[in-house]
């Protein structure tokens, strides 16, 4: 097979259709959305194709929008933290299980990933309501005197999102745990290291890249989550995604909604690329 022109063209023939579809259906629509964010809008005149920074100025000067973005950030940070705190030990436990048990447990932990997010969040709405199971259980145990407010609060949204997103953390950490050589752990043990020391000095450093990549996924998905905050948070507790939805389908101020979406996308792209750079630079020796 000589590297002639037709052989060189082959990969382009093979990827061509997908590339055409992505140029037409990803690049162009996203480009149009970015443009839209710089368009003018008025209650009566509708969308006006005139370049303006009005939408961004409005977002950065109005405390309502600032509050929504801060809430989104707070929720995403908390969800990521809890996903690490719960997901990392769980992945470790899972990895040490006998294979037959692990199969069943994986089914229980990863299975919910395949169930519609709407059905899962409905479950939390039923559990967290003021008359819900969690409150009734806590009251029956005498731990609380009156129902705690979970619905329409950030706490409720965080709980639901941790449930929805934690499988991604477990998968990422589990993937890096599978690459570990169990002999290293045994070596540390035979040299007299305590369990805690082994965790801190041997296992943790090797799975940090897995935790970081899991954190990026969980954070990005939590910051842009829509269905769970909309159902648990209700109409008043807005996050970035539900704010954009509101602007598009209720207020009909599309340029403003597009500006919210562009800001969300830009923030996530910067965060993802930045973290990836950091991981590659600091942990390149782990991947080698």
């Amino acid at each position, binding site marked *: 097979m000589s590297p002639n022109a037709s052989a060189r063209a082959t990969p382009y023939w093979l990827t061509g*259709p997908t590339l055409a579809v992505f140029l037409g259906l*990803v690049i*162009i629509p996203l480009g*149009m959305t970015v443009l839209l964010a710089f368009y003018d809008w008025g209650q009566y005149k509708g969308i006006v194709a005139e370049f303006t920074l009005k939408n961004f100025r409005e977002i950065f000067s109005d405390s309502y929008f600032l509050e929504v973005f801060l809430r989104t950030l707070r929720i995403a940070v908390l969800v990521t933290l809890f996903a690490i705190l719960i997901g990392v030990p769980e992945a470790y436990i*899972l990895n040490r299980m006998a294979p037959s048990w692990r*199969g069943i447990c994986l089914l229980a932990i990863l299975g919910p990933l395949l169930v519609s997010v*709407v059905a899962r969040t409905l479950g939390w709405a039923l559990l967290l309501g003021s008359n819900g199971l969690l409150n009734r259980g806590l009251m029956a145990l005498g731990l609380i005197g009156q129902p705690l407010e979970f619905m329409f609060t950030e706490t409720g949204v965080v709980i639901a999102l941790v449930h929805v997103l934690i499988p991604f953390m477990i998968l990422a950490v589990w993937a890096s745990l599978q690459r570990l050589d169990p002999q290293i752990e045994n070596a540390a043990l035979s040299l007299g290291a305590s369990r805690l020391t082994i965790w801190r000095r041997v296992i943790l450093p090797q799975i940090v890249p897995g935790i970081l990549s899991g954190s990026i996924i969980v954070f*990005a998905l939590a910051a842009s989550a829509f269905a769970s905050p909309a*159902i648990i948070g209700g109409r008043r507790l807005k996050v970035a995604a539900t704010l954009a939805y509101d602007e598009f389908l209720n207020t009909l101020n599309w340029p403003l909604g*597009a500006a919210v979406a562009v800001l969300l996308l830009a923030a996530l792209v910067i965060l993802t690329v930045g973290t990836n750079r950091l991981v590659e630079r600091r942990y390149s020796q782990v991947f080698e």
Partner: protein
Amino acid sequence: MSRNGPFAILFHTLFVVFMLAPLVVVCLVAFTPEGYLSLPGRVWSLRWFRAILDYPEFLRAFRDSLWLAALSSTVAIGLAVPAALAIARYRFPGREAMTALFMSPLMVPHVVLGIAFLRFFTQIGLSGTFLGLVLSHIIVILPFALRLVLAASYGIDRRIEHAAISLGASPAVVFRRVTLPLILPGVVSGWLLAAINSFDEVTMTVFIASPATTTLPVRMFLYIQDNIDPLIAAVSACLIALTAILLMALDRLFGLDRLFVGTGKG
């Protein structure tokens, strides 16, 4: 092999309860005989499952969701197979950029994609159409199809294909009789994962669905926004049951870890 201590087992048990509790509660509430949200006591009733039949919009949305998932994942796998073969076997200028582009729907928030498609489809007159739904779903599920086919394509022994060529097989025959059978597990699991993701997609679809063409998750979401009652719990319970059956079948066929992680090799 199991060296987990009692504390680890306890932690794990609590975690599994946490993961399953919301799903179990939905299924229990669906069997309530009452007209309001409650757990069934001594009497279990199927009245809310029967009530679904009085809401044809749920059934219609379910049918549309199935069609949408089948169509979009079939097109996506049709695009993904040649693209994956090119990426797995050739080193060509633009290869990394293309791979990143094809995987980008995983990183772009679905809200942003929903807004982008709403704007685009409104401009070209596709908004609220079934074709619009199919096109947008192809984009969001293609990365899943591509990733699994790619993993399968990296694993093939090219010498088998070379043997076929040296025995006089045409490129079409080599693909149909040698290459495709070799990557078939990746193709089937990629198609399935793509179809499931299409079926479950709600965030992007809520922007571009119209009352006439909508999907089951969007219909459920809009219903829940208005009120939460045992009816919607019954609809969700059906969905959970369906997923559970599918999940067990998948686990038998492929092994779940393979489906989720791609392959163990990563």
